[in-house]
């Protein structure tokens, strides 16, 4: 950093430890390693991203007087078959909302929420013509995330 400062003018107060990178929280953490239990390592976490995404979704839902279920134990119902869903197709506005939700969930998977990966991959096949049932189930994945907001890969 001192080396950089000798070449460039750095903004006052902008030099600090990294906090966020591409939506992932960057932190130091202690890894459960039996060989050296006290070793501190850098880690990334999706917790903040999940929390903020849920806040956004709940704000959007509250406008339509809806809310996320609080009882979602799994991402999707075990017997759910999205390909056999015959509920009405969504209007363009809500279809694009569906796409943005899938985009958010996909990025969560990339940041380490591998537990929702299968469900998201299943639901993202219906981006072109999403149906009401698909949207309901994507909201269920979010409800699952609300119930399990902490399952990240790094122990922070």
């Amino acid at each position, binding site marked *: 950093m001192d080396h950089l400062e000798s070449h460039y003018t750095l903004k006052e107060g902008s030099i600090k430890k990294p906090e966020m990178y591409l939506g992932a929280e960057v932190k130091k953490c202690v890894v459960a390693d039996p060989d050296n239990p006290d070793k501190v390592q850098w880690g990334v976490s999706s917790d903040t991203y999940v929390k903020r995404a849920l806040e956004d979704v709940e704000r959007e839902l509250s406008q339509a007087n809806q809310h996320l279920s609080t009882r979602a134990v799994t991402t999707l*119902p*075990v017997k759910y078959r999205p390909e056999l869903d015959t509920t009405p197709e969504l209007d363009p506005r809500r279809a694009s909302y569906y796409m943005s939700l899938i985009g958010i969930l996909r990025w969560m998977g990339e940041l380490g929420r591998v*537990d929702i*990966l*299968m469900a998201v991959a*299943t639901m993202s096949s219906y981006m072109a013509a999403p149906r009401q049932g698909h949207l309901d189930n994507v909201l269920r994945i979010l409800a699952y995330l609300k119930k399990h907001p902490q399952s990240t*890969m790094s122990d922070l």
Partner: protein
Amino acid sequence: MPPNAPEYRGKKVSMTCFVDASHANCQVTRRSWTGVMIFVNRAPMLWYSKKQYTVESSTFTSEFVAARVATEIVEGLRWKLRMMGIEVDGPTSMFCDNESVVKNAARPDSMLKKKHCSIAYHRVREAQASKVLRVAWESTETNIADIFTKILDGHRHHKLSQMILWRNPPLAPKVPKGD
């Protein structure tokens, strides 16, 4: 190997890969689903969950297609690590819960009886022969990639995600017989 490839630095890392497929998962197209999870040392490094591009007629072939996809990902990741100067310790252990696939891929004398998956067969066997891979069997119960191939019930979903998500680190790789 390019002449300007970086020298190895730091400790060697071990690489473990879990593969699974769910045959004819999609009820409309009857395509199967591939799930791959790759660990470098004990850290989850790469994951893949996607519908396959072809329709397969048996569990065996869809598992073999998944193994081929995983082989390609593993080779890509090994190359990437090589170019970053990280040495991978020995071949990547690949765990698959289909016994026939393991036999067909791991044993040099085993013949393929289903001709239509011969590309996947040769792809995986060649990787095994060139010591990029070594394929071993893993029970469906503990195959982590299962979580990427089907929608599971609450108990199993929780168990498998706990295995990946560090609270309980994954089991140490077992050395397959006859290697």
